């Protein structure tokens, strides 16, 4: 086990295109770090540079106090789970898992013991004699993980390991990975474009955009104190709503009425012209249901509902609004970058599932202004980010992690204990 330290890592391809641009990232020993971003943001390239499958153009890659830039993958002692598993089809499951041990010339009895242990953890005992071709997707995935955990690697690297599984299995395997990581307490770097995985698995999440780090923070900090428009739009599903706004003193004029700001945020936005207000769907509510005590913290407005989606436990309403040309272009650009296609400017709001608001009618909504962020539309910068509050969230998450790791270590190798833990963590 070791920490991983990246200092000003750059990856430039032959045509001069920088896939990874000046990335510096410290991953602590035992930490679960997520690399996330839309396709083409350089997250996989970065992971492959850690493991040594991709050359580093410039910068230092330090694993456990040793600079590994010029080491071959086999000398870095890392284990990796590939997106398509990359199992060896001509070997049995046993030999697949044992392969790293065979290469290191481990004695036979030790190989058998360690493969059996790994198979126990992953519940693969009855499949050890089968060939990968005869296994289901989830079983193959577990074999790939078995191959990773069978030797004492410095760190685990996952390259979108769940993207080939169906949704239900993905949820299960996510829990399993989380449980395993906590139990083994091993440094883990996990690449994904799925933000559910990013939010649930990571101690910290590193959001990348076009090869550059946007923000590294705990999932909570990313969600509550995003550093810019990109992170705010990427984290959260349905995504954050961005409304055009103009400043008038302490008030922001939005298509959904005026919004009062507190002193800190008012100071941050004063003297600006056109702005974007970011409000998460759950900060909206059907005005008729809102708690009287909460009502003064926000504003109410009337709007026509385009579509509603009732999901049982929650309900979404889509409210179209008009935006100036320049804001529309900005938002369209952003959604293209986030791999989605916003055809019209509309707000997605989450309302109580018992709400009787109907499609095509006008309805009254309430909007909580306390947690709204204000962004500069040209630079995308979050003008109202509270860095201290954010850092506090990440610090709390770090404390939680330390506690969990301690607990897992004191519990030792008990598998059933690990099981219960895993369920809680996920």
């Amino acid at each position, binding site marked *: 086990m070791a920490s991983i330290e990246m200092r000003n890592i750059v990856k430039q391809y032959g045509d001069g295109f920088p896939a990874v641009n000046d990335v510096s990232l410290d991953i602590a020993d035992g930490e679960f770090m997520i690399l996330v971003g839309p396709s083409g943001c350089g997250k996989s390239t970065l992971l492959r540079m850690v493991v040594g499958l991709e050359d580093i153009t410039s910068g230092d890659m330090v694993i456990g106090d040793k600079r590994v830039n010029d080491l071959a993958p*086999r000398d870095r002692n890392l284990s*990796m789970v590939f997106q*398509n598993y*990359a199992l060896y*089809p*001509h070997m049995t499951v046993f030999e697949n898992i044992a392969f790293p041990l065979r*290469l290191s010339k481990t004695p036979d009895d030790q190989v058998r013991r360690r493969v059996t242990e790994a198979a126990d953890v992953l519940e693969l005992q009855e499949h050890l004699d089968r060939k990968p071709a005869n*296994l289901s997707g989830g079983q193959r995935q577990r074999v790939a993980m078995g191959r990773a955990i069978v030797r004492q690697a410095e760190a685990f690297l996952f390259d979108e390991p769940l993207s080939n599984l169906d949704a239900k299995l993905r949820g299960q395997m996510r829990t399993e990975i989380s449980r395993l990581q906590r139990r083994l307490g091993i440094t883990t770097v996990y690449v994904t474009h799925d933000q559910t995985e990013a939010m649930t698995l990571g101690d910290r999440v590193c959001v990348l955009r076009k090869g550059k780090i946007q923000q590294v923070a705990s999932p909570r900090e990313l969600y509550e104190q995003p550093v810019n428009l990109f992170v705010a739009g990427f984290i959260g599903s349905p995504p954050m709503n961005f409304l055009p706004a103009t400043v008038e003193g302490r008030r922001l004029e939005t298509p959904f009425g005026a919004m009062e700001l507190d002193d800190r945020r008012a100071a941050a936005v004063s003297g600006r012209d056109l702005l974007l207000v970011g409000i998460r769907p759950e900060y909206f509510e059907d005005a008729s249901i809102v708690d009287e005590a909460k009502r003064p913290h926000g504003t109410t407005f009337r709007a026509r509902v385009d579509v509603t989606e009732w999901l049982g436990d929650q309900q979404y309403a889509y409210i179209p609004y008009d935006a100036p040309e320049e804001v529309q272009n900005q938002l369209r650009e952003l959604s293209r970058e986030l791999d989605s296609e916003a055809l019209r400017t509309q707000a997605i709001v989450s309302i109580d599932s018992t709400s009787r608001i109907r499609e095509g009618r006008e309805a009254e909504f309430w909007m909580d202004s306390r947690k709204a962020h204000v962004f500069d539309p040209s630079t995308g910068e979050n003008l109202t980010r509270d860095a201290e509050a954010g850092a506090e969230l990440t610090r709390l998450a770090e404390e939680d992690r330390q506690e969990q790791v301690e607990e897992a270590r004191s519990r030792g190798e008990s598998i059933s204990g690990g099981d219960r833990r895993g369920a809680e963590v996920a």
Partner: protein
Amino acid sequence: MSRREKTWWIVGGIAIIIYALFPIAWIVSLSFKGPSDIANGQFLPTQLTWENYSLILTGAASDLFLPALRNSFGIVLIATAIASVLSMFAAYAIARLDFRGKKLILGTALAVAIFPVISIVTPLFNVWRNIGLYDTWPGLIIPYLSLTLPISIWTMSAFFREIPWEMEQAAQVDGATTWQAFRRVIVPLAAPGVFTTAIIAFFIAWNDFVYGISLTSTSAARPVPAALGLFSGASQFVDPTGSIAAAAVIVTIPVIVLVLIFQRRIVAGLTNGAVKG
């Protein structure tokens, strides 16, 4: 598929099988005919006889045939083995590595493959005589490599390209050197390709006539196809048709056996289950 269509497919299939197998059946039938039967115009021999086979295996023609058979086996197997190993390395490099002159190598291989053999046989004859390779095993193995290597490299690199690159990367991360990854992961996965290539190379060398007849003069190195051309009848008035037919049947047997043995290895789809599914 309608019934009518199906019938046509069956009829067509049978026609093709007859077209392809009739000459072979004829050769087999000829090999069992006695001298008086040969020209009687009937398909089946009036009386089955092993005369032709005993003539070439133990009789007068055995001096010509048996050493030729031994030469053919030896030379062709060595040439095939060398071609397979060399083309395995070459194809791996072509499929996996980026190096200058890759296109040139593939282009040259193709050019060599389509170059008419007959045009280099005369200069080769002179060169071989001067450097002492004429009428020796290496004197045939080397030209056979020039026939088999290009096609082997082409087919094998196609097989190597099919293997997911992640396989090899996974092996490297697991702690394998490039050589270990090649030997323990890539080669086993490419085994069907290796066998297919080896069989194609074997056929090409086994069937060669031009080099065989031009670069040998005695039974020291003369291969079977060349020896067949030198058969003579029991007397100068008898055509050696029967014994040639018998020899032809015998040289066909190894080819058939080879295909039957490796048929199961030449199935594609060994990589099933390597990646997602």
